[in-house]
């Protein structure tokens, strides 16, 4: 008990130094938390993926389309409940930097297949009835200030020209993990136009989204679909939605690894700072420890004192850091909504924060403790400040 009291007194003996150290830890834990959140939002699409959906695309690569005639054939395959299809439109709003995902889809089946996109019934009907209509996510509409009935013009990069759409509906996500920055419009609108402009590209779809009857038949159904189109002009590759999304992350794998490395480095930086503080503290208190040893305190007690002090400092700091992470992510997510549509602090991140601060406290205290325990009483008493 008395040790605990000394420990707390020690930790806050040097007010300036303690508060600087705590501030440093708080900043580092904040940075660590932000980086972990960046990584987990890379994987947000994977976690949000449904187990009952498959994605079928051209086996050569995603840029090659599949004929629309496959839709009927896929529908007949065992295990398939629903088929929808769409194209990546690749349009930009006014200029390149206003990037958001935009697809044309077969609307009726698409929204049935993706119940997490919630549409108002009246708005949905208006959208279905208007071939030039479009549906956008809540965040996207807010970002550009679009209102129902507005005309939105996208500049096509893959399909040249300016494309006009009328905003008919704004969807919201069923929960926070749903991407609310997407833009959908009628596949038929694009197809009718390409028939006139580039007949070669008409009647093609970029990918099929397939709903299976039960999650456990997903793998077999995927194999059956690919088999059906084997040795055809457009062979298919069918994956679960999760695998499909993971494939995209794997492409930028080097970046994710880099961010992971950096989040480890931040831990090392802060270990250096805390270890520095602890080293200074113990050096100054060598005399105290010598007196304690004279009074009969063992090596264990001194170790508890130093480790405890390091723990008190790091925990105070990381608590501050964790609390700050929440407002920081909110500010951050407003600036980088283009890159990461969903940006939320996960419980796992908090656990990792706590684990990190334990490791920091432990590693920072090791060397000073060793020095304090090793020193002989006579040497300790002789040393001045």
């Amino acid at each position, binding site marked *: 008990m008395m040790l605990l009291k000394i420990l707390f007194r020690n930790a806050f003996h040097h007010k*300036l*130094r303690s508060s*600087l*150290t705590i*501030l*440093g830890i708080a*900043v*580092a834990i*904040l*940075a660590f938390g*932000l*980086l972990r959140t960046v990584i987990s939002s890379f994987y947000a699409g994977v976690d949000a993926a449904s187990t009952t959906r498959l994605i079928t695309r051209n*086996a*050569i*690569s*995603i*840029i*090659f389309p599949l004929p629309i005639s496959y839709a009927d054939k896929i529908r007949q395959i065992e295990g398939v409940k629903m088929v929808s299809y769409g194209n990546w439109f*690749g349009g930009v709003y006014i200029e*390149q930097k206003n990037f958001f995902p935009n697809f044309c889809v077969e609307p009726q089946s698409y929204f049935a297949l993706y119940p997490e996109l919630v549409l108002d019934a009246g708005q949905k009907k208006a959208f279905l009835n208007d071939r030039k209509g479009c549906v956008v996510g809540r965040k996207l509409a807010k970002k550009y200030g679009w209102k129902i009935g507005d005309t939105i013009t996208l*500049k*096509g*990069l*893959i399909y*040249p020209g300016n494309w006009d759409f009328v905003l008919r509906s704004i969807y919201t996500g069923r929960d926070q993990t749903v991407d609310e920055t997407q833009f959908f419009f009628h596949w038929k609108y694009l197809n009718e136009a390409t028939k006139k402009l*580039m007949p*070669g590209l008409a009647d093609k779809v970029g990918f099929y989204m397939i709903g299976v009857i039960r999650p456990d038949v997903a793998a077999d159904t995927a194999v059956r679909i690919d088999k059906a189109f084997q*040795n055809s*002009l457009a062979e298919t*590759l069918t*994956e679960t939605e999760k*695998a499909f999304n*993971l*494939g995209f992350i*794997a*492409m*930028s*794998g*080097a*970046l994710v690894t*880099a*961010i992971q490395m*950096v989040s480890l*480095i*931040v831990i*090392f*930086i*802060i270990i*250096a*700072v805390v*270890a*520095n*503080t602890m*080293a*200074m503290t113990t*050096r100054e208190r060598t005399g105290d420890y010598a007196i304690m040893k004279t009074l009969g305190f063992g090596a264990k007690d001194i170790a508890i004192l130093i480790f405890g002090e390091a723990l008190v400092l790091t925990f105070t700091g990381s608590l501050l850091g964790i609390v700050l992470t929440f407002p920081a992510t909110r500010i951050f997510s407003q600036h980088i909504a283009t*890159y990461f549509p969903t940006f939320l602090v996960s419980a796992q991140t908090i656990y990792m924060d706590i684990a990190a601060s334990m490791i920091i406290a432990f590693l920072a205290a090791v*060397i000073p403790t060793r020095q304090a325990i090793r020193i002989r009483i006579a040497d300790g008493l002789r040393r*001045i*400040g």
Partner: protein
Amino acid sequence: MAVPLSYSFRNLGKRRLTTSLTVLGMALVVFVFAAVLMMAAGIQKTLIETGSPDNIVVVRKGSTSEVMSTIERKAASIVEMLPQIARGGAGQPLMAKEVVVLIALKKKGLAQSSSHSNVVVRGIQSSSMPLRSQVKLVSGRMLRMGSSEVIVGNSIAKGFQGVGLQQTLTWGMRTWTVVGVFDAGNTGFSSEIWGDVDQVMQAFRRPVFSSLIFRLQHPDAFDAAQTAIEKDPRFTLEAKRETRYYLDQSETMAKFLRILGTSLTAIFSIGAIIGAMITMYSAVANRTAEIGTLRALGFRRRSILLAFLTESLLLGFIGGCLGLFFASFMQFISISTVNFQTFSELAFKFTLTPFIIAQSMIFSLMMGLIGGVLPALRASRLKIVDALRAS
């Protein structure tokens, strides 16, 4: 009179653990700062070296990469007639009509099925090789035009499965044999697979070209060629210098990395500055009596301030050197990732430029300076009598 430099220097040596921990913290921050900038510079350098200033790329207006672009055969023939195009030895125009598509290939090493990446397949003509002087065959032989043979870039041969010499690839219901590996140095071509343009177009059922590349007869003829192409009402094409074209492709990635890098290091540097501050404050506290003595000897406040600032600048300097030392080893590392803009694989090296060295050193010295200002001010403000009494 100034306090001698050796005073500051020896003080750092006095407390080795504290000094080295502070320096280590700063070195790590500088390392991250330099590494991210090196990554951005690496991508940019790779893509800039891919283009050569005398070459002109023609793509469909508005398309940001060759993959998106389509050029009809008729339009290609019209462009080929331009007088600004250089001629080869036999009088043929030095122009290549190429097609660019992406295929998904499996990466080496990882077992999971998801580790596919998009690789550029470029259909070339015999004039493509002389237009790209950087490309050299390192093993095997050149592909025969009119056959299902391909040559692969060395980054692809290294990083992907099943693309070694004499191995076969299957796309478009045909089997393609790898007959050669080429080295294109530190350029984007090293991440490509090349085949005969007519064969590739047929296999992928793509009756149009993606891009036209030609050499200018005279470097100044660019404007004339550009106007001739862009003003022609028979097609909507645009012409860019190859260097410009590839620089545009690197912009998104480089910008993303720079923003990421600077915001990260801005946060990290707070940690390191605090580390330096703690060190310097305790240096001042431990040496109060010493400072009093110095002042009594006649050293001015300004000299004391300067001595302590020098000490913390030295910390920053050593930290910066150490960080750059580690970062320079990153130059041996070559990584590959998908370029957001072209959606295809690009291998590149971390590149250390003199500008990055200067930036990192300034950054590191700034950290030392900011960390040292307050403690140094405190040291210089001590009253002689109080300071001498302390011990």
